[in-house]
């Protein structure tokens, strides 16, 4: 199997991508959304033509809103972000957005800071919990496979691929944040957690095939290099991995292009995640398993 044979090239590629993604992430940073920081978000449309963003910003600042930023949305609307509102400011927002042209308020959210920090903590815990549960689960599922690689290694490798699967969408999202102000909100975290589930789902299918091939060899008292077994398993699951990704990507593509605006960034994150997840389950997870086995064999 070419992927196993040239695994070092794939490792180098994967590491390069991950480092690049983390570099972009560190350099550009993420726009943390109001879900997590607390704050106000106002989406307003002006069917009769929108006023200038400076006018809107000035009007809202005069009305007592703090750290106001205004961004265009669609052809006739704006999305306004601001610090959490005082009760007085909340009362006058409806008047303050009326600058010259008749406004239609589409969405008005005001999240208290305590709610934001609580959600942030919960998100981090959820991420850690998913990673932990999945490692334990994979180790459990493959518990009967201990030769030549212990079941814990399957779990640990799953987590390593997971780190890769998180790093790439995060890096991509840092770029989206830079390009069009995409924000990390609760939906983004949901997308990441879904990607984790999907990626593991994919990895398990490949590992499962390795498990079965090892068992069949043992039953038939065949001797076959682990390297070959792993390569064969990838080959056998390759079409399925690609096809499942295809159908998932087709649905997500439909969601991205035709779906609600509210879930567009979400769909894009998932698209990137599904691609990285499929790639890592084919070109990272099993090759790592082989690399570990070779390393053990050499030392023994």
């Amino acid at each position, binding site marked *: 199997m070419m992927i196993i044979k040239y695994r070092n090239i794939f490792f180098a590629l994967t590491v390069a991508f991950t480092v690049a993604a983390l570099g972009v992430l560190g350099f550009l940073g993420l726009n943390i959304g109001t879900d997590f920081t607390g704050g106000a978000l106002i989406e307003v449309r002006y069917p009769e033509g929108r006023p200038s963003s400076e006018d809107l910003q000035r009007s809202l600042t005069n009305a007592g809103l703090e750290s106001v930023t205004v961004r265009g949305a669609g052809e006739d609307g704006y999305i306004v972000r601001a610090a959490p509102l005082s009760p007085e400011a909340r009362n006058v927002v409806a008047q303050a957005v009326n600058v010259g042209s008749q406004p239609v308020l589409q969405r008005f959210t005001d999240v208290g800071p*305590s709610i934001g920090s609580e959600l942030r903590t919960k998100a981090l815990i959820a991420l850690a919990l998913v990673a932990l549960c999945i490692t334990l689960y994979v180790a459990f599922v493959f518990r009967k496979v201990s030769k030549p690689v212990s079941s814990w290694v399957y779990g640990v490798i799953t987590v390593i691929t997971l780190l890769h699967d998180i790093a790439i969408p995060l890096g991509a999202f840092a770029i989206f944040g830079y390009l069009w102000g995409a924000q990390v909100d609760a939906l983004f975290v949901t997308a990441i957690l879904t990607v984790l589930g999907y990626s593991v789902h994919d990895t398990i299918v490949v590992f499962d095939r390795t498990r079965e091939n090892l068992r069949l060899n043992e039953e038939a008292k065949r001797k076959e290099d682990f390297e070959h077994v792993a390569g064969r398993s990838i080959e056998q699951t390759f079409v399925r991995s690609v096809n499942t990704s295809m159908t998932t990507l087709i649905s997500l593509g439909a969601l991205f292009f035709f779906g609600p605006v509210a*879930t567009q960034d979400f769909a894009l994150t998932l698209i990137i995640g599904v691609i990285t997840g499929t790639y890592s389950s084919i070109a990272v997870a099993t090759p790592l398993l082989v690399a570990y086995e070779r390393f053990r064999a050499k030392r023994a």
Partner: protein
Amino acid sequence: MWKYRLGALFILLVGGLLGWYLYSSEVSGSREFRLGLDLSGGTQLLYKADTSAIAGDLEESLDALRETIERRVNLFGVAEPIVQREKGSSIAGEGEQRLIIELPGVTDANEAIRQIGETPVLEFRMLNEGAMAPQEGTTTPTVDEQFGPAILTGRHISRAELQFGQGTGLANQAVVVIHFNTEGRDIFAETTRNGVGKVFGIFLDGVPISTPVINEPIPDGTAVISGSFTPDEARELVRNLNFGALPVPIELVSTETVSGTLGGEAVKDGIMAGLIGFAAVAFFMILWYRLPGFLAVLALSVYVVISLALFKLIPVTLTAAGIAAFILSIGMAVDANVLIFARMREELAKGKSTDEAIHDGFARAWLSIRDSNISSIISAIILFWFGTSIIKGFALVFGLGVVISMFTAITVSRTFLLALGSKGRTSLSRFLFGSGIKI
């Protein structure tokens, strides 16, 4: 084989019936999909309950608070308002007690906030020994030092009524008569029995409106508030007390308002994306997997109607994120079929008959279907726990989708394939059961 054909017919019949049910219940409006506020338009308010002053049973007070606000919100006349209690995460701080109020169709959040906030907080507090009673109707910074904690609050009231000119000194004066519930009556009776000659204060929104002296024990559970009300003020107080004196003070922490037009667009786009996604996935499956692909599309249709029917029956509140989860699940639901077909093809390649290949393919694929789907279920459960209402909507739909798709793949697809029951080794049957795009 006839067994499987009957089974397949039965599944198609049930699928058709479910589809008809979905259509008719939506058109007649007897049971429509439940849409979240982000789709239907409306206002969500999140309040924090200030529980620091509650002396008695916390749970009971908070339930009373919820019921009171619910009564109040019901007066708005909006369809299906929701008032829910929620406890903040205890890991991130002290675990605030919160109240979520959802008002579908209400887009003037400020008016709703005003009407909820208008509700008075009524408290009965004893004047401390040696303290001077403040002037009625005024508040002083030292009011908390002068008075003890609240012994009776709004939750002890069963009803209030307006009366005029009760007794001699109060002729033509509007007074509010409060009837306590059983618990309130006992507390009030005991307080007045032990406290003859003492002064207590009746507080409305933190302001002492009346500070009478206890002349004699009052065992019958009524109290008269004789603040200097105008008849209108008294009438409003009676109404507010009856419809919702808040047993616990609350503070607004978050609001969210979505207009109906934005929500309507999201629904329209969501349906569009779902249809296009379904059609494209179906096209791909038939192109690649041919006859089994067609059967997988039938199974996928059954999956879709079962899911949608469950969304109605449970009912699941659909949000934009929930619709996204459902569309995602359409793509993932065929995975089990793909796994099975891939296995079937291998068995065919070994020279088995199509019948054997179907049986063995299912048996071999089941383990990886089971093991891989459990990881998605783990993610869904954790998401559900983590979630705000939006995320919960996603997690529920996603988790349900995974479970239902497993079910349809191993029952529906299997029955369909076996119903065809081709034993043939002809090149046509091998072509139909083969896969790939080369012909």
